[in-house]
């Protein structure tokens, strides 16, 4: 691993799902990077492939299949890694927090046990003995598990679960939604990850809890230098937290760049549309804006720009041709065949 390499480098990722109606092309050639210690947001509507992209990174895309492209984490390609390597990566490098905390914790095990397990995996991902994890007496080191449970309490404290000492024996159903998501965060932190993937971590929570949790993620990023890949449909969250943003539409990256520039000066018609939909930007008393039309169903490979049917600038070429990537200033780029719409120099078309 060399330092100039990005922590996570996704190149031309394609993830497909086989369904009865045909092959769903959930991710169609997404490329992006996450550097050490930065917070990158992936934004998109439902069905834009953002969750599948995230799941592919930690190799939980099943029943989908990564058909092409590469995902390099700390220099190793995880798309070709074996089970052992993946266990090491998940236990010691990359952690994920999911959307709905009511279903992501195992209901029959104590929360502290579920965190303790993560600590145990982190310590030694290679030798995981079933009987040890089942706490079968002669095969399981009780004092080690007791120690892990104590550290689990510390982690619960660290992620802001109130009175963790009293909750050592608590089960997930005894936790509120916000506390469960914090517990998920503790399970992630137990592995001291370099990269935290958070898939809409606050969507299922109250607004106040949302803010606290995001604050917590930001602190972890600043204090521990943990990089974060944040998946959301909420541009507000992106503006609040992220350094860079990737706009995903129908499994393709429409535009990417630094958050500051992109939110003030969106170039791609889709990014502009998204920003115009924010209620803050609409004058009071007038109708909230929306982008007409729907997200395509993703069945079949599709041709041209996926946003063309909903784009007001679309011309014939948009519906058929290959969309080039256009370099914009400040290291940004956008996928569009009409540089004039992007307000870009035609010479920067790749």
């Amino acid at each position, binding site marked *: 691993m060399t330092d100039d390499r990005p922590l996570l480098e996704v190149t031309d990722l394609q993830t497909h799902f086989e369904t009865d109606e045909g092959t769903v092309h959930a991710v169609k050639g997404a490329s992006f990077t996450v550097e050490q210690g930065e917070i990158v947001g992936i934004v998109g509507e439902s069905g834009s492939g953002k969750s599948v992209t995230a799941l592919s990174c930690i190799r939980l895309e099943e029943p989908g299949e990564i058909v092409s492209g590469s995902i390099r984490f700390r220099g190793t390609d995880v798309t070709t890694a074996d*089970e052992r390597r993946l266990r090491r990566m998940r236990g010691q490098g990359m*952690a994920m927090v999911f959307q709905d905390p009511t279903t992501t914790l*195992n209901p*029959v095990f104590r929360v502290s046990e579920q965190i303790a397990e993560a600590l145990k995996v982190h310590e030694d991902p290679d030798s995981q003995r079933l009987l040890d994890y089942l706490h079968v007496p002669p095969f399981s080191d009780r004092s080690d598990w007791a120690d892990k449970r104590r550290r689990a309490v510390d982690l619960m404290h660290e992620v802001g679960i109130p009175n963790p000492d009293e909750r050592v024996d608590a089960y997930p159903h005894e936790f509120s939604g916000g506390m469960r998501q914090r517990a998920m965060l503790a*399970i992630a932190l137990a592995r001291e990850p370099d990269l935290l993937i958070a898939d809409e971590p606050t969507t299922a929570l109250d607004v106040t809890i949302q803010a606290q949790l995001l604050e917590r993620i930001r602190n972890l990023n600043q204090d521990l230098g943990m990089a974060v890949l944040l998946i959301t449909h909420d541009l507000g969250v992106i503006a609040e937290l992220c350094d860079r943003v990737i706009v995903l539409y129908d499994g393709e990256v429409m535009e990417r760049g630094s958050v500051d520039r992109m939110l003030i000066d969106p170039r791609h018609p889709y990014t502009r549309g998204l920003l115009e939909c924010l209620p803050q930007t609409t004058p009071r008393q007038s109708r909230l804006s929306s982008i007409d039309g729907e997200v395509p169903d993703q069945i079949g490979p599709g041709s041209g720009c996926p946003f063309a049917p909903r784009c007001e600038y679309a011309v014939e070429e948009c519906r058929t041709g290959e969309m080039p990537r256009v370099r914009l200033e400040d290291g940004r780029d956008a996928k569009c065949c009409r540089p004039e719409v992007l307000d870009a120099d035609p010479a920067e078309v790749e």
Partner: protein
Amino acid sequence: MYRFILRRAVSIVFVLFGVSVTTFGMVVFTPGDPAEIVLREQTAQNPSQEAIREFRAEHGLDDPIPVQYLDWMADVLRGDLGQSYYHDTPVTTMIIRRFGDTAELAVAAILVALVISIPAGVISAVHTGELPDHASQLGSLLGVSMPNFWLGYLLIVVFSLYLELFPVSGAGTVRELVLPAVTLGSGIAAIITRLLRSSMLDVLEAEYIGTARSKGLRERIVVYKHAFRNALIPVVTIVGLQFGYLLNGAVIVEIVFQRPGLGTLLIEAIFARDYPIVQGLVLVIAVLFVVSNLLVDVAYRYIDPRIRFDGGTR
């Protein structure tokens, strides 16, 4: 938890009252005078009116039915299930003597069932649509549809007569227990396998399984710890209900293998119209059934922390 058991105990009293009335009534309303039948059996000739009257008086058969019931219940509550019409041994003693043999068979059968069904159900779910799944599905179909007595005879023919590995009949040693336990256990194994398979398939779709995998846990731990514990919840409920099946099956298996036990005792008593034994056995079996269901309920609450002993669920 104690309140839960207490509440269940109260309802059990009512259930057992119902059972006792039914068992008692079953004997009273069965056509044929037991005095006449038993005496004819004992003396091998038509009994005299005198002898019948004497028998009825001795066994309290002339009292009004409610009085007979109360007498019987009073004895039952003291642990006295009455006196057999034929044998000198009290019914309670006869049942206790035979109970051990049936309990041994039942426990062995459940063990056989679990040893077969847990791996079969889990492997079947993990490899859906592949060869191990088809094999286990076919096996459980056979297990469910093959009657106990037939399987018992098949096993006797193959393993006792042909291969001479196990004795044809008898009880007391482990070798004599193997074939009956396999016969009785395989049917239960088939049911548990099918249940566990579908339960595992449901659970493996759950999001917390994704969480477990994302932690970097080995697939074996994900399956046998995280999924299995959850998949057990519906299975345990059904296994408790299978206890009745076990007792029914034990009757047949005991006859096929000529084992002593509650089953053979029951059949002998029914054919001999030895009503005190029938009454006593039915009552004991009902108690066993009810208690085993209570135990399952308690176990169920330990496996699933969401169900609490005070009756509420979340």
